[in-house]
């Protein structure tokens, strides 16, 4: 089977001793494949053994001022919470962000690879890559590995010459341009809050608060989401992290504990 390893070429670090430094760069890192009759079944088993972290809530939307990107920070392996502090919003470059949902290793690796490709594009073309271009690069790589068991559900958000851009890209090879997306096991809950409160002409603070609430509600109802709700804003001068709040604390901010009115106080039994 021939795989499209072009995704790996630019990621190849300087391998090995000087004697190995032939033109073997493109040949150097290639994905080994097990020698089985049932590749699919083997991948399913292998993934079961490895149980990559997934279960998440991420969202992003375009509004008048730019793009808001938000995510939780929980990683779960089956029923075990493997981490509460995973960075699910990946900084591809100073004006583009990617979100992570699905297999943590898959998302981390391919986003880093995308960042490298975007930088190479800048150097080769003397201009920044567009969000359209970056998302297309990633989608093409993921399409070439379609059916191999990669699990990636990501949003590429950024600001380029045409203004704010937002694309959804997944490991099935899908790529969608849109104004509002939410990805992950908690996404139905996030959509409920997001779709209800969304207006195109919000201020940055209002938009950030909407995103924060949407993530909070998703973590409240979805067991696989939790941790810290991070909110980023992407504007003409690049991205900026607006807030990072523990969702447990957000709960008591939104629903503070009211001391209940006491009707009759119990009086201490006097003596006897």
């Amino acid at each position: 089977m021939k795989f499209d390893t072009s995704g790996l070429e630019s990621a190849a670090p300087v391998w090995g001793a000087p004697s190995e430094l032939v033109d073997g760069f493109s040949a150097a890192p290639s994905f080994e494949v097990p020698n089985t009759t049932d590749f699919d079944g083997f991948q399913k088993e292998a993934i079961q053994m490895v149980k990559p972290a997934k279960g998440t809530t991420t969202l992003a939307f375009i509004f008048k001022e730019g793009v808001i990107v938000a995510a939780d920070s929980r990683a779960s392996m089956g029923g075990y919470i493997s981490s509460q502090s995973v960075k699910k919003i990946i900084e591809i470059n100073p004006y583009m962000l990617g979100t992570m949902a699905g297999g943590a290793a898959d998302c981390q690796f391919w986003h880093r690879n995308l960042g490298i490709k975007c930088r190479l594009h800048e150097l080769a073309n003397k201009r920044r890559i567009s969000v359209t271009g970056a998302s297309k690069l990633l989608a093409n790589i993921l399409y070439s590995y379609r059916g191999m068991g990669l699990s990636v559900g990501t949003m590429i958000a950024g600001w380029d010459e045409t203004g704010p851009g937002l694309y959804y890209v997944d490991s099935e090879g899908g790529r969608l341009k849109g104004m509002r997306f939410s990805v992950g096991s908690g996404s139905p809950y996030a959509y409920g809050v997001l779709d209800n409160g969304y207006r195109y002409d919000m201020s940055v603070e209002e938009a950030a608060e909407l995103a924060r609430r949407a993530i909070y509600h998703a973590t409240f109802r979805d067991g696989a989401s939790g941790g810290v709700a991070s909110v980023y804003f992407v504007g003409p001068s690049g991205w900026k992290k607006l807030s990072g709040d523990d969702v447990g604390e957000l709960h008591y901010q939104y629903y503070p504990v009211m001391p209940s009115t006491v009707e009759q106080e119990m009086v201490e039994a006097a003596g006897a």
Partner: protein
Amino acid sequence: MPKQQANWSPYDNNGGSCVAVSGADYCVIAADTRMSTGYNILTRDYSKICKLADKCVMASSGFQADVKALQKHLAARHLVPLKIQIYQHQHNKQMSCPAMAQLLSNTLYYKRFFPYYSFNVLGGLDNEGKGCVFTYDAVGSYEKVGYSSQGSGSTLIMPFLDNQLKSPSPLLLPVQDAVTPLAEAEAVDLVKTVFASASERDIYTGDKLEIVVINADGIRREHMDLRKD
């Protein structure tokens, strides 16, 4: 005749637990030395810890044949002795722990479709001499943390470490440090306690504990006996 499925798996789980705890100027990495398969103990004296660089040590549990292959891979690609030297010559400095962490992540991911069944924990000092711990899954996703455990006893050990060491998440704004506030001796004591407890309730953890401490003076090893049952 219905189609026969293969009943041979290339993987096995040799059990065991690893822990790493980082501090302001030190890092403690520990693993038990029991190697098992199923209900049998293969040996009581197997080291799961491997030195990758001067101030960088890796502990791995899972399938030890894959762990050995991973260690060999890192070495055979001249990554440990020679690549470090290449890096040193090119960049005029030792390969730091964060750099090694990224390297290990990529090495694991290149076997994405036939993974190393190895759950790793990397510990060491960064270029400023601060302790750092990186925790991995089997296919290379990694994260810098203040402490971590992997292996069969990790579900027993992690909650205890969370209770004693949990620090504010690095994702909070304003940013707060993820480094353990313990002194080196206290951290070593904590690790010993943790393994003693894990050996009580995890059948795959026990026999002996190997502790490696990295600080500004270098690398130091310690051993402690654990339950042999």
